[in-house]
C-alpha cells in the first residue's frame, strides 16, 4: 500500500463519514419504529453533534498543523472554562486564574508549535505548578488555600497539559514516519472516541451489570468489554496509518482504550465531587467539552510517551 499521507487521511475521513451516515440512518429508522423516546432523541442529538465535531476536525486537518494547534488550544480553553466554572474559587484566586486562561494556554501550545519538547514537557508541571500558588499569595486569602490551589492546578493539568499531548504527536520524530504526525493524532482521536461510542452502544444493547454505579451510572461491564474489544479491533485494522505493525497497533489501541476508561471514570468522580452530572452544555446530547475529552486527557499523554519511547528515530 503506497499511499501518500494525504491519501490515507482522505480514506480515513471517508470511512468516518460513511460510519456517521450509517449512524444517522439507524437513528432515523429507530425514530420511525420506536417513536420519539428520550433514548432515541439523545442518540440522534449525539449523532448530529458528531457530524459537527467531525466537520471541525476535518477542516482543521485539511488546513494543516497550525490549525490543529489552534483547535486544540480552543478545546483546552473550553475544557478549563467548564472545570473552573464548577470549582468554587474565591476572589483571591483571580490572578492565578487570569494567568491560567490567558497565558498558560497560549504558551503551552506555542511551545508545541515551536517544537520545544524540553520546555513543553515541564512548563506546566514545574513552572506553572509553582507559579500558581505564588501568584495566589498576592490575594492574601488563606481560607482553604491548599484546596483552592490544588483545584486550579488540577484543572490546568487536565485541561491544558494532558489534552495538549494529543496535538503534540505532530512534533514526534518517529522511525520511517516523518511528516505523518497528523495521521497519528487522527488515530488516537478515532480509537478513543470509537471506544466511548461503542461502550455506549454495547451498554445500551446488552448492559446489565453496572461497572461503577456511584461514579458513572451509565457505564456497564458489558459495554466496557464489547466497546473496548471493538475499538481495539478497529484500531488494529488502522495499523496502515501508524508507524506500528498490526499487532503493535492492537496493543497501542488496547492501551488507549484502557487509559480512556480510567480517564472517564476518574473525571466522572471529580465532576460528581464538584456536584454536577455534566461538565457543561456545549455539545448537544453529550454534555460539555470535558464530557467528550475526559478519555482523551488520560489517553493522550500515555500514548504520546509510549510511542516516543519505543518508536523515536
Amino acid at each position, binding site marked *: 500500500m503506497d499511499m501518500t499521507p494525504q491519501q490515507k487521511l482522505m480514506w480515513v475521513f471517508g470511512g468516518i463519514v460513511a460510519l456517521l451516515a450509517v449512524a444517522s440512518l439507524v437513528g432515523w429508522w429507530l425514530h420511525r419504529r420506536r417513536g420519539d423516546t428520550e433514548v432515541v432523541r439523545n442518540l440522534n442529538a449525539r449523532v448530529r453533534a458528531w457530524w459537527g465535531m467531525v466537520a471541525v476536525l476535518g477542516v482543521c486537518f485539511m488546513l494543516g498543523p497550525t490549525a490543529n494547534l489552534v483547535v486544540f488550544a480552543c478545546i483546552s*480553553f473550553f475544557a478549563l*472554562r*467548564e472545570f*473552573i*466554572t464548577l470549582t468554587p*474559587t*474565591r*476572589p483571591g484566586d*483571580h490572578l492565578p*486564574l*487570569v494567568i491560567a*486562561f*490567558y497565558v498558560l494556554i497560549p504558551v503551552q501550545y506555542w511551545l508545541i508549535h515551536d517544537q520545544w519538547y524540553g520546555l513543553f514537557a515541564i512548563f506546566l508541571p514545574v513552572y506553572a505548578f509553582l507559579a500558581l500558588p505564588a501568584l495566589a499569595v498576592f490575594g492574601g486569602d488563606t481560607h482553604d488555600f491548599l484546596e483552592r490551589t490544588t483545584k486550579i492546578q488540577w484543572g490546568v493539568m487536565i485541561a491544558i497539559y494532558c489534552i495538549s499531548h494529543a496535538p503534540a504527536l505532530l512534533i514526534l520524530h518517529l522511525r520511517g514516519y516523518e511528516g505523518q504526525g497528523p495521521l497519528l493524532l487522527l488515530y488516537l482521536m478515532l480509537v478513543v472516541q470509537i471506544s466511548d461510542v461503542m461502550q455506549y452502544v454495547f451498554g445500551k444493547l446488552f448492559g446489565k451489570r453496572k461497572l461503577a454505579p456511584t461514579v458513572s451510572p451509565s457505564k456497564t461491564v458489558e459495554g466496557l468489554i464489547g466497546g473496548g474489544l471493538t475499538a481495539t479491533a478497529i484500531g488494529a485494522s488502522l495499523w496502515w496509518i501508524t508507524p506500528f505493525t498490526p499487532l503493535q497497533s492492537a496493543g497501542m489501541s488496547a492501551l488507549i482504550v484502557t487509559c480512556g476508561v480510567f480517564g472517564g471514570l476518574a473525571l466522572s468522580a471529580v465532576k460528581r465531587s464538584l456536584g454536577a452530572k455534566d461538565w*457543561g*452544555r456545549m455539545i448537544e446530547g453529550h454534555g460539555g467539552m470535558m464530557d467528550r475529552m475526559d478519555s482523551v486527557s488520560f489517553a493522550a499523554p500515555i500514548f504520546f510517551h509510549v510511542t516516543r519511547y519505543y518508536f523515536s528515530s
Partner: protein
Amino acid sequence: MIEPVAAAALVGITRLLVGARADWQAPPPLGQCLIFANHSSHLDTLAIWSALVPAMRARTRPVAARDYWDKPGLRQYVAGRVLHAVLIERRREEQDGDPLVPVIAALEQGDSLILFPEGTRTAERLPQRFRGGLHRLAEAFPDLALVPAYLDTLHRSLPKGAHIPLPLYCTVRFGPALARVADEPREAFLERARGAVVALA
C-alpha cells in the same frame, strides 16, 4: 441604523465571554415586568440583558448608575443608544429631588426594567440587604410582574477591583414572579424579595 448591529455584537461578546445562558424556572411573564437580581460585577447588566429572548430584550431597559455609565465615550454610547438604560443618580450630593423619577417614568411608558435592589456591587455569592426602591416601585405599580433572577458566577468572573474578566460560564436563573401580599410591611416585602433571589442561588 447601526444600533441593532451594536446590540447583536454586544450580545455575542457577552455570550462568548461569560456564557449568559438563561434558565427560566417558570414561564417568562408575557406583560410588563421588572427583573431584580443580585449585583456582583459590572457584567451583570449585560449578562441579564443578553440572556433574554430578542423580543423581551427589545422592551427591557436596565436601570444603571449614572456615575458609572454616563462617562463620555463607549460607555455612554452603549448605555444610551444600545441598552436604552434608565440612568439614576446614586451619589447623594448630586441628587436633585427623587432619584427614582426616571424609573417611574419608564414604567409609566410601559417599559420593562432590570434593577439591582442592593444598589451597589458585593463580592459575595448571596446578595446584601435590599434597599427600599424596589418596594416603592412595587407599591406604585401593583400589576407589574416582579421577576427575581440570580447570576451564578459573575462574582467570581469579575470581583470588585479586578479588571480582566474570567471566562466562566454564567447561568442566569429566573424565578417565578413574586406573589403580591396586601398591606405587607416594607421590611417584610424586601426580605421576601431578597429571599426569592437567594432561593435561586
